[in-house]
């Protein structure tokens, strides 16, 4: 296979023509997206260049603490993004969500890089950080969807939950349908992705490996591991977070704490 072709700064700037097209579309049709497109473009450049320099540095060193620190920054950032999307004031969901994300994503990334790929040491940044990033990015969206659904349904169905409580249900029994719906809502995008992969779209990681000259038959193996990893980590983190947060929706007397907005 031929060596990978570098993209020069000039060529990178040529790609801005796509942004120009988007800006013109927004301007002509008064979409009001010009500012967001500009900010998004600047953030894309800044964040990815920063990540590129950080990864270049980390790949040269052999410091597990540095690798874990980067992982921690990624989880904290994901938590802030979830907090921005889930506008819930009554129920304190941040700490259980953050701790579950940290533990489950760390376990998944260690499992994949250490056991499935079989890298020694397990924290080898070339494998551990991309694996962690994919797990965090995917599950972050799933958790935001699940949390939004849980809080929305608990509010909308408060009278129904209370009716079940009054017929002798404990809080788990009274909210089992809401719990199931919340977990499923978060997991469906990952499951749909498994249905469409290879047919409807070629995932980013596999595309990147192929562009970098990897044999497609090796790239698909990595991609299969990634798809399975994403479904597993989404399931574990969604179930655990929903279990903790659902309990927090009920008080000491198993009464519903959420009041209608």
């Amino acid at each position: 296979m031929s060596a990978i072709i570098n993209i020069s700064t000039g060529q990178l700037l040529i790609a801005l023509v796509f942004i120009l097209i988007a800006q013109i579309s927004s301007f002509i049709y008064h979409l009001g997206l010009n500012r967001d497109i500009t900010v998004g473009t600047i953030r894309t450049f800044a964040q990815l260049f920063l990540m590129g320099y950080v990864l270049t540095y980390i790949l040269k060193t052999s410091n597990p603490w540095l690798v874990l620190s980067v992982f921690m920054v990624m989880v904290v950032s994901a938590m802030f993004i979830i907090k921005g999307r889930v506008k819930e004031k009554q129920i304190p969901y941040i700490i259980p969500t953050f701790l579950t994300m940290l533990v489950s994503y760390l376990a998944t990334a260690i499992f994949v890089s250490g056991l499935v790929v079989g890298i020694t040491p397990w924290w080898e940044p070339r494998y551990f950080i991309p694996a962690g990033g994919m797990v965090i990015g995917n599950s972050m969206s799933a958790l935001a969807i699940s949390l939004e659904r849980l809080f929305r349904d608990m509010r909308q169905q408060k009278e129904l939950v209370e009716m079940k409580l009054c017929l002798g249900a404990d809080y788990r029994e009274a909210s089992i349908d809401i719990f199931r719906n919340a977990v499923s809502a978060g997991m469906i995008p990952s499951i749909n992705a498994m249905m469409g992969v290879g047919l409807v779209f070629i995932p980013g990681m596999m595309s990147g490996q192929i562009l970098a000259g990897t044999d497609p038959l090796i790239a698909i193996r990595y991609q299969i591991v990634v798809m399975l990893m994403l479904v597993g980590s989404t399931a574990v983190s969604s179930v655990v977070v929903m279990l903790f947060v659902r309990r927090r929706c009920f008080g000491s007397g198993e009464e519903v704490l959420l009041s209608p907005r």
Partner: protein
Amino acid sequence: MTSLLEIRNLSFAYDGSTSLVFDQLDLTVKEGDYILVKGPSGSGKSTLLRLICRLNQPQGGSILFQGNDITSIPPAKLRSAVSYVAQIPQMIDASVEENLLLPFSFAINKAKTRPGTEELRELLRKYYLADVSPSQSAMKLSIGQKQRLAIMRSLLQNPVLLLLDEPTSALDHESAAMVFSIMESLNYEHCKTLITVTHIDYKPETVSPITYNLVHRSLHILP
């Protein structure tokens, strides 16, 4: 006769509010009592019932059920014994039979005897629901039928104390008369202890209730 329910010095305010709904409220209920709580809208009648079954938590005071503080009783066990029927009856999207048997799907009621379909038909007749089939959808019933079904469902788990929150507020005169008749027969024939809150002027025909007026944040007995 021993006290079934004792409320002492109860105080309550809604979240974020400084004004008390109840202040030093007391109430004693004995087994077999038929308690009527009257009072204007917004006086806290529904809240009083919700506090007894722990759907709300008081700021102060105590509620004893059969001599035990309700906070020391597991919530599911308490609510199986002290059953609250809300003002607006709630049904799951299923048949009448599935709705009636809903309490038996919960762990606390698993050991209790489930009525069969024929027994349910007989009960439906007693609750003026003879024209309702166990297999039909509960969601399609009228509000009056749902209210009677909700009372019937609560009683199937054989509670010690039944709390009825404005059971006739959404009903026409005929449906309301049926519900009152059911409530009175529960007390008179089956010795059930009831606390009913209502804002309408209702005088039972076959039982002698103890009537309270809920005003100025506490209960005042009416002659």
